[in-house]
């Protein structure tokens, strides 16, 4: 039994999927082959957008946290939790693609460059946030605690990033993942930009879907508490 809401979700979902397919067509047919790295470099089109989505989620986390704190709203916390989950997903994706890219290109599975390190630390923070959220009983206390943590995480990410960057520049020349620098072809640039755009929209949509799921789950949970009292 499909409601009109379900149908709408289906349409949006299909649109997004087609955007993604379109993007991947660009990646494979539009962007040229890199002279140095060969076809492997295309993984960048997955890696960089994921990274942006991962860090963008932290902004979303902060925004929802501040709103939830201001309005003492537990519903908004469901959205915050959604952004944390999506954020965790994208940090893992970033780390995985970074690792896969690194192996054939530079020979190592892992490198301690500033972006990857910060992404790793961010993944830990998202995981910690979700664990904390899950281990507290629902209520205004949880709203307060998780909202504060969300703000703290967002505030800390740039500090961590900067400190790791400065630390890295001392140790070795940055073996940073190249975006191509000044020699980036316009085709590559456009594909990259479209990738970022698509990924962020996709992430936002995932947050929306997930946020609503979480709200429904929490309403079910609170209904079960209600039956406790009604006895």
């Amino acid at each position: 039994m499909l409601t009109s809401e379900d149908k709408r979700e289906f349409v949006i979902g299909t649109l997004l999927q087609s955007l993604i397919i379109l993007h991947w067509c660009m990646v494979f047919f539009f962007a040229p082959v890199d002279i140095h790295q060969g076809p492997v470099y295309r993984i960048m089109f997955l890696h960089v957008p994921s990274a942006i989505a991962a860090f963008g989620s932290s902004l979303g986390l902060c925004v929802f946290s501040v709103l939830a704190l201001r309005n003492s709203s537990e519903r908004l916390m469901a959205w915050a939790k959604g952004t944390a989950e999506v954020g965790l997903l994208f940090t893992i994706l970033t780390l995985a693609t970074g690792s896969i890219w690194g192996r054939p290109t530079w020979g190592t599975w892992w490198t301690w460059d500033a972006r990857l390190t910060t992404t790793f630390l961010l993944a830990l923070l998202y995981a910690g946030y979700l664990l904390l959220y899950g281990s507290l009983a629902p209520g205004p206390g949880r709203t307060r605690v998780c909202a504060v943590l969300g703000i703290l995480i967002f505030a800390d990410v740039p500090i961590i990033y900067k400190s790791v960057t400065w630390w890295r520049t001392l140790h070795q020349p940055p073996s940073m993942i190249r975006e191509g620098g000044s020699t980036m072809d316009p085709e590559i640039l456009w594909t990259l930009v479209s990738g970022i755009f698509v990924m962020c929209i996709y992430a936002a949509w995932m947050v929306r879907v997930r946020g609503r799921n979480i709200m429904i789950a929490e309403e079910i949970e609170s209904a079960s508490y209600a039956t406790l009292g009604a006895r």
Partner: protein
Amino acid sequence: MKATTWSQYLTLVRQGLRAEFVDKERLISPVLFSLTMLVLFAFALGDLDQSLRIRVYLAETFLTALFALQMSFSRLFEPDRQDRVFELLRTYPISYTSLFLAKYSLVLILGSATLIPTMLFGAFLHQSANQQLFSWVVLGIGLLALAGLGALGVLLSALTLKAQARQIIYPLLYFPMTTPVLLAAVQSARLCLDVGLGSPELKSWLGLLAAFDIIYITLGVLLFTELMDES
């Protein structure tokens, strides 16, 4: 009736110290942990080249101190959790700023009691005839690091107060967030021992450390009061 902020602060600090001394295990175990770890490291690493000694000493000492401190931070509010003391505290007319500062002062006092022996013992273990590892400046850097680590520790301790799996969640959230302070502290200390006090880089890293401290203390006070108010 209510007490002045200053006398509230003093009362809370005194009570906190009393809680530590009354339960000897809380006081002694972090230090014992540190010293044991350092000895184990010394065994594992054996005799080291001159050139490596400084790095190893700093790495070991700061890491061990961090683990020991993390342990005692996560248990910071432990005495207040018994018999719902903490809830009763919230029904008393205390200012949350003075509560934070009281806990923070406790952290500084007790943290130093862990940090200083750790640094001294570490230097003692790795010292050689030609290389002085102990330095007042390095000790000072350690204490500066404590200032930042402590603020974060208090805030996180309050956040995870009611969490079920605190033992896991606390380190998971704490360690990523301490990265900036730790990096700045280790860098400064290394420059101090390697290059000497005149190094301009040392000054910039010290400045960074101080800046991080101020940021974390400010965040700590603001978010803590936000957390406690109407919680």
